[in-house]
């Protein structure tokens, strides 16, 4: 492929004598215009993105008091952090909540998308629209409503569970797994519509011929879903997973609204809530900055893993 292209360009050597110009009238400026156009973004990024990041790297080496005096402590914040059981606990909680929210949600979203794809479904655009309503609802409002649903003594979910004989007065705040389930439910509620639409869009992009030839071969609806739809969704699943992972590492508002300290035994203290509490409750800004840097490393590791997995998947797809 590349060889042919190279051959083609060599057929028109005169075109190489002059660079193509974006703005023929302002020849002298040429490529410099590009910098001008990206300047506003670069400026904002440096001021509000890069500078704070570098600054937090800097203060992570300090015992930092914004109002009083700060002193350099070297790597002590990081050393303390690695020996802080709360840090490991918050990693466990974050990943547990991430797992409980990502995977069930993905199955449900694919299922919902499959229903919405049905051409005989009435009021399609209505359903597609209301799916996004939870996504634009304030997290605080969602948390208030859900914590009432999940109330231990008067919550409707406990009423249903005890009516079905599945449990009695389950404490969805004090229990480790129950509290994770509660938070994961809120996240699922908020993001399922969004993910459904993503899956729906990529389902609608699957060429109809594939289904036709499958049905000619005698595939049932279920087999069509298993052998045509799902393989075609591979890239979308990877995308949803990556976005879900990034979101999952940032879970903050839901646990914070349930109990600002992350529960009596920190059973739903997430990484970001841990960071926030160290900075703004305990006033340990240097320590919090160190947590932020550790979160960055965790994201880096996960992104690398994601990168290799998605590369493998897309290679499989072209084969």
């Amino acid at each position, binding site marked *: 492929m590349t060889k042919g292209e190279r051959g083609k360009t060599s057929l028109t050597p005169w075109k190489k004598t002059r660079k193509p110009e974006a703005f023929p009238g302002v020849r002298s400026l040429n490529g410099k215009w590009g910098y001008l156009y990206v300047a506003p973004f670069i400026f904002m990024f440096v001021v509000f993105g890069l500078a704070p990041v570098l600054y937090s790297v800097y203060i992570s080496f300090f015992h930092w008091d*914004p*109002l*009083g005096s700060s002193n350099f402590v070297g790597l002590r*914040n990081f050393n*303390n952090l690695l020996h*802080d059981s*709360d840090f490991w606990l918050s990693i466990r909680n974050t990943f547990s909540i991430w797992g409980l929210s990502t995977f069930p949600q993905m199955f449900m979203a694919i299922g919902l998308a499959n229903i919405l794809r049905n051409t005989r479904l009435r009021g399609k655009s209505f359903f597609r629209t209301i799916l996004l309503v939870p996504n634009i609802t304030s997290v605080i409002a969602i948390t208030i409503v859900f*914590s*009432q649903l999940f*109330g*231990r*003594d*008067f*919550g409707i979910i406990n009423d249903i569970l005890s009516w079905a004989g599945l449990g009695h*007065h389950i*404490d969805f*705040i*004090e229990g480790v797994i129950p509290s994770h389930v509660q938070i994961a439910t809120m996240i699922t509620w908020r993001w399922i519509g969004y993910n459904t639409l993503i899956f729906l869009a990529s389902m609608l992009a699957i060429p109809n011929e594939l289904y036709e030839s499958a049905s000619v071969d005698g595939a049932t609806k279920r087999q069509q879903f298993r052998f045509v739809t799902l393989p075609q969704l591979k890239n979308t699943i990877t995308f949803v997973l990556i976005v879900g992972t990034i979101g999952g590492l940032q879970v903050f508002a839901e646990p914070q609204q349930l109990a*600002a*300290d992350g*529960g*009596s*035994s*920190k059973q739903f203290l997430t990484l970001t809530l841990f960071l926030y509490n160290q900075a*703004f*409750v*305990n*006033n*340990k800004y240097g*320590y919090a900055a160190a947590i932020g840097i550790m979160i960055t490393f965790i994201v880096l590791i996960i992104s690398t893993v994601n990168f290799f997995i998605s590369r493998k998947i897309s290679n499989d797809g072209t084969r």
Partner: protein
Amino acid sequence: MAVASIAAAVIGLGAFSAPAKAADPVTITIWTFGDVIQRNLVAEYKALHPEVTLQIKKSDLDPLDGTNMVTACTSKTGPDIVATEVSYSGYWRSYPKCFTDLRTMKTTGEPTANIAAGLSASDIKANYLPWRWAQGVAFDGSVIGIPTDVGGLEVAYRTDLFKKAGLPTERGAVAKLWPTWDKFIATGQKYNAKLSAANKKAGMGFIDNAGTIYAAIMNQGTAKYYANDGTENGKLIYDTNPQVKLAWNTTIKATQAGIGTRIGQYTSDWNIGMNKGTFATILAPAWMMDYIKAQAPDTAGKWDIADMPGGGGNQGGTQLGIPSYAQNKQAAYDFLTWYLAPAQELKVFKTYGLFPAASVLYKDPALTGYTDPFFNNAPVGKIYAEGVQTLKPIFEGKLQRAIDTAIGAGLGRVAAKKMTAEKSWAQVLSDLKKVVNN
């Protein structure tokens, strides 16, 4: 003495520039939370001073007194007036540079409201409850806040439920049931013993949350987590102070006696339980009375207020201060001294239940004679006034809020039966080590 002369010099300057400012239109920005700044009083002030515009920004307490104030002081900006809750006063008294020393300010005077000209914070100090005033004084002696209210803490109880359990219902007799905390716990057990099996299964109990006993006992002492050793920070004594151990042990005892319903305060379960009579008592600061009225209007007249076990009590309270980077300090100070004058604090108490910190009112029949029909016509003014006067000043330390949170979590673990009391206390100590050291 040098401080005094500097203060006098600044007062002189203040008096000189004040009259010119009074007539110019001025906007005072106020950062506050909850019901600290009352709409009707703001309207009243506007009528007195048409040239003043009050811009009020409400936030939640923790972001307001934590993040927002730290950011404001660090970036040398900020509002003209900020409301600080007492749980944060220990923190801010360590940073007097963030606040204007109100001893250096001087009133312009407000003849219609009977406020003389030229009053500094030192001049109005005598109007307020001494230990409550001290919570607004920084370690270097500068006055960084004037109290709007004092929490107070008394026992709100349901007369109908007490009657059903065969307990006395008259508030004097009820108070005699629990001269001490041990007697309070014993009364709770007696109450629970009378509950039917069905009611017990439905989670009913004597007090809403036994964990609230901890803060009540802590405030009855003379020291919390810090001892005043004459330095800015004070000495940390959370692991040796007998008051901490007493409060912890009593709370554990109450928890294990099962007198509480384990419902968390300010949850939806709490609001519902208040209506359903799930619990018969709440340790209620004065400002909570308004909350109960709003959440459980149908229980009107069924409540009453009795004295706390072990004497008085306190929980919460707020003060107003002027950040050092405020733009309109004089106008802010004039508003603040008017708003916090005894006459206005009395109005706030009658309409919203915030109990006045202005102790000159405690002998005023307008306060002592005030009864509340929602609470079975209890003389709430008199009861809370007597309660708060028995308390002593406590040295507030910088990390008080964080230490309170860690101990509260420890009590929660025991209440949820996740840990034994001993194990949970050991965990509290290791958590606190991290709070103090890391």
